[in-house]
Every structure is written in structure tokens, then in C-alpha cells.
């Protein structure tokens, strides 16, 4: 199968020839082709080509994506800075839109055609459409956007002390997600768009499962339902970090048919299959630290184990790093992911 055929078959529930390899390789692509890291986020054309070339070289499936974890700050009129030195991986906040309670009153919904990185993301999406790769809108998740609108420690305090403030921000974040998804759906057709929701701030390293139930679940249910009603067929949830205790809630989310759930190394693939395998393609879960610091042999063995577990997933499985592949990952370690698929990933 070609890459395109394989992904189309996977998403439509048809058999695939082998386990696909999903590319979470933003900064890595820049380093791989010799571009400054910042171009991945500031220059759609070069970001697209760096990722496309890198995917071609290593045999990734899917296609280039645009997005970063601190999404929301810029869009809600805060400030971010692009990665500059050897130790920075992605855009980071410099000024949060909300620093005090009063700032919440000033918050307005972003203009999805003009604010923050959205024009860049739309330019990128047009390249995806032209190339014929999946048109992916990376946005959120709801709680993570909220934690990018106001500092996450403040958000956590409000979750406990002034929950109404947290809810106000979460409402705005949710409305924004829906707005952006609608813009993408109107531009390309809902059935061609896959929304990707990254939720690192909802991990149990930050909030409890009961807080997830009150401050994350209802909002993701709302945005998920509205997104699917636009004709979007698949929602891709990146369940980032330690979220084992949240899994019972993740199963309640609208995902499309199938959804896609990517997990970090903190969640066993077998566990993810148990909770989500009947409604979602499972993707993951190669530990980024091992990718960066491990030997090629270690990466290969880790991928072998992941493939052997993931092949049993009912709706399908994609091999993927558990979170973004570190930009300094040795090239051979990334090659080992595809090698493991070639050796163990054929159906």
C-alpha cells in the first residue's frame, strides 16, 4: 500500500498491510533538514517541506502537522516567543492573557481568521489539502488552552478556590475550539478535517481524576459533539502524560468513527486498548526520553514490544512517539521505529 492508501484504509476500518508510523516529529524535522527550529512554527511552507521530506526519508505515514502545546496564549492576546537556542523546543509563553481575575472580563473570543498562529495554521492546512495529506487542525485541548490563557498554577488555584473563574475560561476555550473547527470545516469540508486535541495539562501530574471529571470532561464532550456535527469524522485525542486515572472519562468522549487516541509511555498499550480500543485507533507510545537518549537497539526493542501489543487493537494501531520526538533525537533512533515496523508490523 502507499502511505495514503494505508491511512485511508485505517480510518475507514479496512485492513491495512502493516502498522502505520505516525509522525510526531516537529522540531526533529527542522534539525533533520538543517532548518532553524523556529521555522516549524513561524514559516508554514518551510515547516511543511521539512516535515514532508523527513517523513519521506524515514517512511512515516500520515503527513505534516502544525501545532504546539502553548496554543491559546497568542490567540487570546498574550505573547509567545519562538524557540531560539539549543535548549528550546517549541514556542513558549512570555505573557499570559490573564494574570488576574479582572483580566478574565477583558477576554474575547479570537478571530479565527486573523489571531495568533491561526493564519499560519490555515496556510499550512492549505498545503495539506494541496498535497493530499490529512487536513489536521491541532487545537487545545480545552483545559490546556485554559492553562495557556492563564498560568496553570493560577488555574489550579481557581479550580479549588474560585471554580467559577476556571469555568469562565474553560467556556471561552471551548467556544474557541468550536469556532476554529468550524472555520476549518467551512473551508475544506468537515469530512476532510481531522481535529487534534492535545491535553497535557489534564494529566494526573496536575489535576485529579475528579477535577478532570468536572473541569475537562464536560467541555470536551461539548466541543467533541459540536465538531462531529460539522461533518468531521475523526477526532484525534493526544492523551498526554500520566492519565491512567482519567481513562474512564476519556472513554465517554465523542471521537468519531473511529476516533484516534494517542498515549504516552505512562499508559500501557494494553490498558488503552481495554478502555478505548472499541471506539478508537490507538497510537503510541514510545517514550521520547528513550528516543533521545537510548541506543538504537533499545529503541528497536521498545518499538517491537509496542507493535506486538498494539497489533491486537480492534480498530487499529499506529506506532508513534509518546509525545513529541525530541528535536535532538539521533537519526538512527527514528529509523529504528520504521525498522521495527518492517520486521514486526506486517499483518
Amino acid at each position, binding site marked *: 500500500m502507499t502511505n495514503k492508501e494505508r491511512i485511508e484504509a485505517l480510518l475507514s476500518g479496512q485492513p491495512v498491510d502493516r502498522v502505520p508510523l505516525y509522525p510526531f516529529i516537529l522540531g526533529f524535522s527542522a*534539525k*533533520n*533538514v*538543517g532548518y532553524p527550529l523556529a521555522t516549524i512554527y513561524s514559516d508554514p511552507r518551510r515547516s511543511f517541506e521539512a516535515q514532508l*521530506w*523527513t517523513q*519521506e*526519508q524515514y517512511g512515516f505515514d500520515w503527513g505534516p502537522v502544525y501545532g504546539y502545546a502553548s496554543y491559546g496564549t497568542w490567540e487570546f492576546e498574550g505573547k509567545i516567543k519562538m524557540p531560539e537556542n539549543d535548549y528550546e523546543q517549541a514556542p513558549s509563553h512570555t505573557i499570559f492573557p490573564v494574570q488576574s481575575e479582572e483580566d478574565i472580563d477583558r477576554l474575547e473570543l479570537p478571530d479565527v481568521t486573523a489571531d495568533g498562529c491561526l493564519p499560519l495554521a490555515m496556510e499550512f492546512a492549505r498545503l495539506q489539502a494541496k498535497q493530499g495529506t490529512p487536513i489536521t487542525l491541532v487545537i487545545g485541548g480545552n483545559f490546556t488552552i485554559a492553562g495557556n490563557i492563564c498560568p496553570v498554577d493560577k488555574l489550579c488555584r481557581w479550580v479549588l478556590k474560585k471554580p467559577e473563574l476556571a469555568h469562565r475560561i474553560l467556556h471561552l476555550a471551548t467556544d474557541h475550539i468550536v469556532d476554529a473547527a468550524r472555520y476549518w470545516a467551512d473551508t475544506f469540508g468537515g469530512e476532510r478535517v481531522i481535529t487534534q486535541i492535545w491535553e497535557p495539562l489534564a494529566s494526573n501530574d496536575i489535576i485529579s481524576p475528579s477535577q478532570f471529571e468536572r473541569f475537562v470532561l464536560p467541555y470536551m464532550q461539548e466541543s467533541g459533539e459540536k465538531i462531529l456535527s460539522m461533518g468531521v469524522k475523526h477526532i484525534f485525542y493526544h492523551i498526554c502524560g500520566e492519565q491512567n486515572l482519567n481513562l474512564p472519562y476519556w472513554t465517554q468522549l465523542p471521537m468519531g468513527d473511529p476516533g484516534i487516541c494517542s498515549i504516552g509511555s505512562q499508559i500501557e498499550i494494553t490498558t488503552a486498548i481495554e478502555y478505548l480500543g472499541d471506539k478508537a485507533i490507538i497510537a503510541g507510545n514510545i517514550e521520547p526520553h528513550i528516543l*533521545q*537518549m*537510548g*541506543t*538504537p*537497539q533499545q529503541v528497536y526493542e521498545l518499538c517491537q514490544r509496542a507493535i506486538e501489543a498494539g497489533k491486537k487493537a480492534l480498530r487499529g494501531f499506529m506506532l508513534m512517539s509518546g509525545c513529541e520526538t525530541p528535536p535532538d*533525537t*539521533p*537519526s*538512527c*533512533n527514528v*529509523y*529504528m521505529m520504521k*525498522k521495527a515496523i518492517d520486521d514486526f508490523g506486517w499483518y
Partner: protein
Amino acid sequence: MELRQDRMTHKERLQALLNYQKPDRVPIFGMASTFYMINCGHTLTELQTDPQKAFNAMQWSCEQYNWQPLWEHLAHTVLGSWDFGAKMKMPDSPYAMTIAVETNAVQTEDDVWNLRMPDSKTAGAIPKRIEFCRLQDKAGWPVVFFSRSPFNMGADICGVQQFARWLVRKPQLCDQLIRMALEHSLNVLQYWVDTFGAEKVVYMMSSPSEANQIFSPKHVQKYALPYHREFHQRMRAMGVNKFMFHICGEQNLNLPYLAEFASSADGWSHPSILSFGHEVDLEDAAKYFPDDIIMGNVEPAIFQAGTSQQAYEHCRMCLEKGRKIRGGFILAPGCALPPKSPPYNAWMMTKAVNDFGWYE
């Protein structure tokens, strides 16, 4: 993008060239021992100290890029500096590529005459290198013995600048150093032959200090070539016939002399593999050495500092010339592939051969 499926193994492809037959496609030689280490997340110090890591890195990287692993070298087996007692330091900075000399073994004229022959089994990097070669042998590969030319090694013993002065003023000092370098190299080669058998040994030689950026062709003809001649006579007498010569840098003015030597009865056996820097045109190389396999010669800095399109185009231009070479051709960088080359740029060799390097 799916690459075209190879119809030959690396071994078959190399053997075809050595038999003056057309392979399925142009082979690719990385010349990339330092790049392999970075490619696999290892350090350049480990290249010197950990033969197993270095071997694994070479094996995996050649597999990853589909490059020729056979006849690929690690690092110098014998060293004019280290072996003869120079004070060395390991690469200790993000900008350092290899071991470096802190203090030369020879600094004065007396030092030259007092210089002792090193132990052929324990000097310098020899113990680590033989460990690496045992891994090559275990994998069923030929074992590669890599040295500078005797002239170059002689210069390394005292440092090129001192050697250059003596070459004009007191050439007998240089002669002595070259002689010692030659004898030491052959002593260690004998150790390799005794350990692995002559038929398994590939002798790789490089001669960057013979480049015309430093020495005149007249100096090379008078002081380097006689030792090349003797070296090849004695190497062949040991039964070692597989030869690879990295004619490094700007050596256009040396080519007539090297060609005359190569075509003489004392010259290297044919075909040998001759690699050239970007300074020498591949067509000129083929003209001077019609009976040998020509290898090269993409400018290394293009891989590191150029765009991928530039790297691809340079590879294409080399292939355009190289595939017509009657004696056979291997695509390679013109010198060591820079370890910090973006992997995609290095992969352009693979892509270019896929697109332009097939013999139909």
C-alpha cells in the same frame, strides 16, 4: 517515497566493480565514521574508545541510508603522532572532530635521530583498531587497515610546519621520519596479516599532506613517491592486494606523477578504489587512472552547510560524470562526511542514486 529495490547485495555490487562489471546501480560510500556516531547518538570520543559502539553505529547507519558497509573504515590504524609518542587529546569540544596533537613527539633535530620504533601491537590506537577489525571479521567483512601515506605520516610525527621547513633545509631529517613511518606501518600491517590473513585485509591509505595546498608536486615526486613505490612492493609481498587510496584535497598537480606510478609495474594492483576530493574533476581522475574504480567527490561542506537541494544537485552532477567512468564509480563525499550534516542532506546521496544512479 519508496526507493527502487536493489537487485544486488552490497557484496555483489562491490564484487561486480572489482571484476570490471556493471553493478545494478552506483554504490554509495559514506566515508562517515564520525557521522555514524552522531547518527546513533554516540560521541566522537567513543569512536576512539569503544570499537563495539563504533561498529554498531557503522552497521546500523549503513543499513539506514543503504550505503556500502564493506571497506568502510573506522579511523586511522596507525598514527604518526600518537604511535610515536606525541601527547594527544580526545575530542573535548562540540567543535572538535577527532583526536588532536597537543605536543609533537619530535620537536628538534636530535629528536629525529633518537626516535624509537613503536610497538606494533600496543602503540597508539592499535589495540582499539584491531578490536574493531575483529568485529568486521566476525561479520564476514574484509578488515580495513587505514593509514596515512609514509610521507604524510612522517610529517605528522614532527608536525607539518616543521616538516615543511626541514624538507627544504634538511631533507635527510624528513627522509628519516618517512622511513620510520613506513617501517612502522608495515610492521603493524604484518600484525594484521598474521591475525586475519592477507586475503582479508583491505589497505586504505590517505595523503592529505601531499596536497598541493601544502607541498609542491616536485616535493611529492621526489620525497613521497619513492616511498609509495617501496610501500606497495612490500605490501604485495605480504600478500595484501586490496587497496583503497584517498587522494585528499587539491592534488591536481600530483596526478601525473601518481598516474605514472600507478601504471608502472610497481604500482598498486588494479582495480583499486581511488577516492578524490571535490578539488579534482572526476573526469580528470578517470583519465589519469583508467584501470581503477573512481570514488567521490561531493564537497563535504555542501552536506553540512548547503541546502538539501544543493546536496542533491551536487550528487547528481557527480553521478552524471561518474556513471560513465569505464573503470567503475562509487558515489561518496570528497572527504569525511561532516558529522553534523543534517541527516536529510546525507540522505540525498541515497535519493540521488535512486533517481540517477541505476545502470539499465
